[in-house]
């Protein structure tokens, strides 16, 4: 057993992990980041749609190395084909780039390394080490070597699997309704509108949606999320997507050049993301937007805060839950309200009928909206279809 000593060990080199490692190293902490795969960012597990407004705030410059395509807006399709077009101004921070996630993840990890973080790939954390009630690092396997990595702070950035937190005793378990099972093809030689990210709602994708995110004029990520509460047997995510593609000839004529599977959490924010000597970041902390399934922005924002708090904790030589709660408070101040609001919306949307989707999208497409927020949408709907809004009143009431 080889022993390594660090201030911070980050488990997982996705956007949340790398952002944490980057900011912690920048702040003077001695950081090691582990990635269980042999290649950072690959294989991709993502629809790759990303908003752009938040990048600047984190000091990230849009970079041609990871931007595949830029869209003007989004279109939301009801089951009957009616369509609501949302331009960028209206969508606010909800659309922007379609990225190459593998390149994006590598970019962030390389920046973390350049800032001083050590990186080990093909290295898997196998357990969390505890002394009394505090986490003091992880055990890991790297090739044939067993490692004991002693660290003052352990960062669980291990993505959807979220094992580090649960091994440490933090509850990140999900309910049936709080999980979407996903499948996606990268498709080429299709007919798509490269100006828009498209979202298709309704019973063809129970409790979720189908997305077509263009990466070029005839190239797009075509994927589906299906709510776990609607699933009876294995393989349904892929089955629903195959059926949907069959019913869309412009897509169906294309070729499937890549397959991607995955799962996305869509839960209420969890109660606790820190404990003595440990913080959870990104997907591992279930910090995903429950309505859109987007998690890149929130993971990076959380990582930015977590990394800074790591550096502060090292300076203060205090790794207690009480100190690390700074991170918990800050990420909640930043985006928890939005997650809660969108969770309430998701809860309602899961069970809406195709008829309601048709009416709602039609009504909205005939209305001029100031901004696309849940509240604006409901106000507009209320004017047109008061009875519809009754169905949606949970949404209107908000959290």
């Amino acid at each position: 057993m080889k022993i390594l000593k660090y201030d911070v060990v980050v488990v997982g080199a996705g956007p949340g992990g790398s952002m944490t490692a980057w900011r912690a190293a920048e702040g003077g902490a001695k950081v090691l980041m582990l990635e269980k795969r042999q290649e950072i960012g690959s294989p991709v597990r993502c629809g790759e749609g990303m908003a752009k407004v938040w990048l600047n705030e984190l000091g990230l410059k849009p970079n041609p190395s990871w931007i595949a395509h830029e869209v003007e807006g989004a279109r939301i399709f009801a089951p009957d084909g009616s369509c609501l077009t949302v331009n960028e101004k209206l969508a606010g921070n909800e659309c922007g780039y379609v990225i190459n996630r593998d390149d994006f993840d590598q970019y962030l990890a390389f920046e973390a390394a350049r800032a001083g973080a050590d990186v080990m790939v093909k290295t898997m954390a196998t357990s969390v080490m505890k002394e009394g009630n505090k986490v003091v690092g992880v055990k890991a396997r790297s090739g044939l070597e067993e490692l004991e990595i002693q660290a003052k702070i352990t960062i669980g950035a291990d993505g959807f699997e979220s094992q580090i937190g649960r091994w440490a005793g933090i509850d990140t378990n999900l309910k049936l309704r709080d999980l979407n099972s996903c499948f996606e093809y990268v498709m080429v030689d299709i007919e798509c509108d490269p100006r828009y990210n498209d979202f298709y709602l309704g019973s063809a994708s129970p409790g979720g949606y189908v997305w077509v995110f263009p990466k070029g004029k005839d190239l797009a990520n075509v994927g589906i999320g299906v709510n776990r509460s609607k699933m009876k047997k294995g393989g349904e995510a892929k089955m629903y997507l195959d059926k949907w593609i069959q019913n869309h000839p412009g897509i169906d004529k294309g070729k499937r050049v890549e397959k991607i599977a995955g799962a996305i959490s869509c839960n209420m924010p969890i109660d606790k993301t820190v404990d003595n000597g440990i913080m959870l970041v990104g997907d591992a902390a279930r910090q995903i937007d429950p309505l859109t399934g987007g998690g890149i922005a929130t993971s990076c924002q959380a990582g930015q805060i977590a990394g800074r708090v790591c550096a502060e904790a090292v300076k203060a030589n205090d790794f207690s839950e009480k100190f690390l709660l700074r991170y918990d408070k800050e990420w909640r101040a930043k985006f928890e309200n939005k997650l809660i609001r969108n969770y309430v919306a998701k809860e309602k949307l899961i069970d809406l009928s195709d008829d309601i989707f048709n009416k709602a999208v039609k009504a909205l497409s005939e209305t001029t909206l100031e901004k696309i927020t849940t509240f604006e949408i409901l106000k507009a709907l209320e004017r047109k279809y008061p009875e519809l809004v009754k169905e949606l009143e949970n949404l209107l009431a908000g959290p």
Partner: protein
Amino acid sequence: MGASMKVDRSLCMWCGACVGFCPRVGVTLWETRIEFNEHCNGCGICIPTCPVGAISKDESDDKKCKAKKGGA
């Protein structure tokens, strides 16, 4: 010892959906290999969770368990 579930390696896409949704952390993804551990109680919640249908109950093992229990 978690041997009541099996993964079809030709279908599995190593996505980790089963891992993150297992309430007992009874399954782990080792880069490209799904492995059920001693915490797995064979509840099967992972079966419909799998986007590609790669997980099933190992019936032969089920019988073995029952036989063992019957014998005990």
